[in-house]
């Protein structure tokens, strides 16, 4: 706005507004006392308190004061700037002030909420915070925002049902979308499921039409067998480095005839069938795979490991086998990113008392899906893995890894093997949300295939919140599935491979000592391996449970704290298919809003480098987590240069500069020093 920079030269005239926030602040902090304490601070022209500063009335009061008292700085003591900084900056702009002449003191989250039990100290702290904000406000300088370009393209990371749905929404809006999937085919966990609750429709029958739609959508480019290596830039202009693993099969030439598979001499465990069946070294994960091309597993291919074979190349009539393929790294520029990398099923070897991995007839819920799927290792015949007999008595144990403070999801107790995948050993007591219905569905499927089978479900609580879920649970009970309230402590194997479970039935008060042919463990959902690294690459926060943190738990569930990066599906928290699809829609809409803008205003938070002081030591370059500072050679020697679009304003360069050549525009040393000095003042 023209003229806004003129505020700088004038003596500070500060308006201070203390917010009651209803009783959120006023219930603890003596707001009137805080107001009076600020009245005679240097530079303060007017002090007021409002019941709700963010309300229309509150905002109008500030606008009027700016005119009446000729204010040129505003201090608002209220909630976190994350909530209303934008509101008040807009208000200042409308009133003709530079929006960066606003300073907020957080007297709610940092004061009344955390010190609710000590009103006197909370009031004192609020006074200190306001005094320090006024001290900084006196030194604030008007800043101009720069404009950044917006690329109308989006990258979706993760090709499960959430990623697929998001990509389809975006493609449908005419937005060019890159769908990055680390596996050879898109589809994710949903492609591994046999049926979906509560309708019992075949999972792939509903997913594969969407997968085909993705393949056919001209706006979507699938980057399968690929992983994100590096993310740079910011909203509107991200540069993503994607590493494409070699398939050794030309996707365009391969028609999926399968001649190569028939002749390939190497048989290995099939991970898509949870290692219960085998596949060849050249394979397609499942018949409906997209892209519908084969892939060579370079860890097991005889030619790639031992240097001879090439049978597949000899039999392929289309010449699609290309052993000379290598890792390719592509840099893709997009305006927004949707992270939809899903979950990982909890490995029940972390709970050795249940015997998974030791007893062949103890399986997980995902194993069960493959076992009962027509395309699975037994072609849909329910046979227990130990001896391929049909199980007549099946037990399901719920909450395996979920709701477990001690060893649960991500609380891997074992070292090595399973232990290495957990990124945190903190206990995670959350409920994985889907397992109750997964178990109800699977119990029902056993009954459907074998009506005479006895099916027991051990549970702690049945959680069936969802459309049609409770009705499905009721139907399961009516089919004769017995739900036993009480979590078993142990599974014992008998000589014949059958499994003994002793539990307390809380309803009847009896101890039940029962024997089953097969036990299915309802494994919880945990953050996928590598999520920590990905989060670090994108500067995303994770919540305590290890999943990615949403922008706001209620109002921004598909956004993140980083502009231009959105979340869809289980990467945010375990959820079922309809919820994943819904969140994918929300993320796609949010990404489309970003991409529909012609340009984006960038907050001027970056560094200013004084070339006269810079000695080119490169410390800032090494420390910058975003690659936003580079040392360039000039005729005056090596000098640091800021790359504004990549900068996120973290301040590491400014704090580390040994010659004080770097100043953070909106957080200058003098501003921060004044703030610290004021807060330490004894009054």
């Amino acid at each position, binding site marked *: 706005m023209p003229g806004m920079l003129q505020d700088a030269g004038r003596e500070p005239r500060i308006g201070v507004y203390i917010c009651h926030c209803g009783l959120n602040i006023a219930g603890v902090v003596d707001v009137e006392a805080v107001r009076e304490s600020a009245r005679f601070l240097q530079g303060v022209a007017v002090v007021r308190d409002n019941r709700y500063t963010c309300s229309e009335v509150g905002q109008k009061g500030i606008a009027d004061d700016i005119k009446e008292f000729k204010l040129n700085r505003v201090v608002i003591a209220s909630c976190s700037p994350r909530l209303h900084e934008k509101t008040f900056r807009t208000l200042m702009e409308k009133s003709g002030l530079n929006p960066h002449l606003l300073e907020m003191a957080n007297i709610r989250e940092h004061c009344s909420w955390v010190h609710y039990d000590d009103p006197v100290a909370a009031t004192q702290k609020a006074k200190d915070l306001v005094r320090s904000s006024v001290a900084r406000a006196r030194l604030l300088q008007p800043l101009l925002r720069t404009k950044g370009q917006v690329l109308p393209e989006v990258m979706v990371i993760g090709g499960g049902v959430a990623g697929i749905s998001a990509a389809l929404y975006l493609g449908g809006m005419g937005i060019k979308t890159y769908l990055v999937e680390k596996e050879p085919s898109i589809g994710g966990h949903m492609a591994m499921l046999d049926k979906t609750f509560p309708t019992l429709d075949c999972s792939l029958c509903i997913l594969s039409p969407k997968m085909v739609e993705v393949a056919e959508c001209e706006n979507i480019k699938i980057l399968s067998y690929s992983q994100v290596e590096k993310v740079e830039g910011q909203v509107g202009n991200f540069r993503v480095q994607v590493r494409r693993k070699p398939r050794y099969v030309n996707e365009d030439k391969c028609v999926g005839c399968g001649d190569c598979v028939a002749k390939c001499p190497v048989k290995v465990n099939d991970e898509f069938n949870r290692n219960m069946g085998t596949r060849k070294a050249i394979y397609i994960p499942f018949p409906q795979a997209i892209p519908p091309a084969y892939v060579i597993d370079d860890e097991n291919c005889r030619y790639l490991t031992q240097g001879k074979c090439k049978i597949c190349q000899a039999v392929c009539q289309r010449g699609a086998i290309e052993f000379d393929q290598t890792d390719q790294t592509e840099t893709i520029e997009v305006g927004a990113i949707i992270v939809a990398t899903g979950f990982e099923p909890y490995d029940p070897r972390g709970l050795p008392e249940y015997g998974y991995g030791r007893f062949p007839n103890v399986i997980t819920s995902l194993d069960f899906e493959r076992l009962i799927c027509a395309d699975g290792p037994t072609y849909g015949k329910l046979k227990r893995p130990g001896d391929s007999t049909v199980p007549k008595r099946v037990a399901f144990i719920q909450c395996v890894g979920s709701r477990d403070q001690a060893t649960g999801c991500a609380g891997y107790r074992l070292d090595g093997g399973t232990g290495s995948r957990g990124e945190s050993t903190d206990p995670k007591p959350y409920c994985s949300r889907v397992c109750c219905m997964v178990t109800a569905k699977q119990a029902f499927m056993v009954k459907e295939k074998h009506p005479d089978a*006895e099916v027991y479900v051990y549970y702690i609580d*049945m959680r069936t919140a969802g459309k049609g879920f409770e009705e499905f*649970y*009721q139907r399961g*009970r*009516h*089919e*004769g599935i*017995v*739900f*036993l*309230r009480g979590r078993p402590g142990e599974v014992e194997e008998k000589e014949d491979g059958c499994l003994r479970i002793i539990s307390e*039935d809380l*309803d*009847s*008060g*009896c*101890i*039940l*000592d*029962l024997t089953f042919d097969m036990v299915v463990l309802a494994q919880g959902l945990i953050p996928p391996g590598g999520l920590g690294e990905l989060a670090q690459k994108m500067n995303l926060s994770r919540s305590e449970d290890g999943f990615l943190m949403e922008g706001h738990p209620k109002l921004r569930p598909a956004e993140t704290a980083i502009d231009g990066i959105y979340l869809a599906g289980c990467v945010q928290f375990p959820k079922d298919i309809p919820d994943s699809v819904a969140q994918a829609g929300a993320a796609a809409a949010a990404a489309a809003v970003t991409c529909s803008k012609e340009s984006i205003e960038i907050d001027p938070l970056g560094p200013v480098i004084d070339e006269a002081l810079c000695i080119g030591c490169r410390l800032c370059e090494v420390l910058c987590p975003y690659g936003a500072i580079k040392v360039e050679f000039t005729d005056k020697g090596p000098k640091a240069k800021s790359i504004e679009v990549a900068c996120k304003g973290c301040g590491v360069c400014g704090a580390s500069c040994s010659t004080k050549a770097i100043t953070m525009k909106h957080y200058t040393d003098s501003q921060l020093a004044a703030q610290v000095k004021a807060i330490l003042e004894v009054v």
Partner: protein
Amino acid sequence: MESVRKKDVPVVTVLDPKFKYEVAREPGGENIKYCFQCGTCTSGCKVAELDSKYNPRKIIKMVILGMRERVLSGDFIWLCATCYTCHERCPQDVRIPEVMNALKNIAVREGYIHPAFRAQAELIAGHGRLYEIDELANEKRTDWGLTEIPQGCPEVAEIYGITGLFDLLSREVGGKT
């Protein structure tokens, strides 16, 4: 097959998984499998108020689990006063008093008749009513100008024969005649 381990907690190793279906087939027992053990029935039960041994929720769970003998041989199912309070309140429409009737019917067929009910049935068989009309009663009736009531009632016995009640009363546990 129940043994007692540690005081009074029964340890159950053998269940009859077909029992719940058997009860569901019996008129009155159709909805038993819908029970999700909320406890509404027991909370309002007047009998449970007097004697905590009677717990309709627990009886239904024992049926679902398949504790056949324990349910059929016990006193519990005979204690229901059929006041229908639980029937009105049950959120799953289990119709508990009718489930109890279904269980009683099965129990009787299996030779588990509660002694109190056996005594009543035998009194009615012998006298045509729940109490005996003695000579004194008939004398009084004569004084008042009323006709005498016959002692014994062969028609009742005939009904017992036709309906099979005699047969049921003579059954041993396990259902053998």
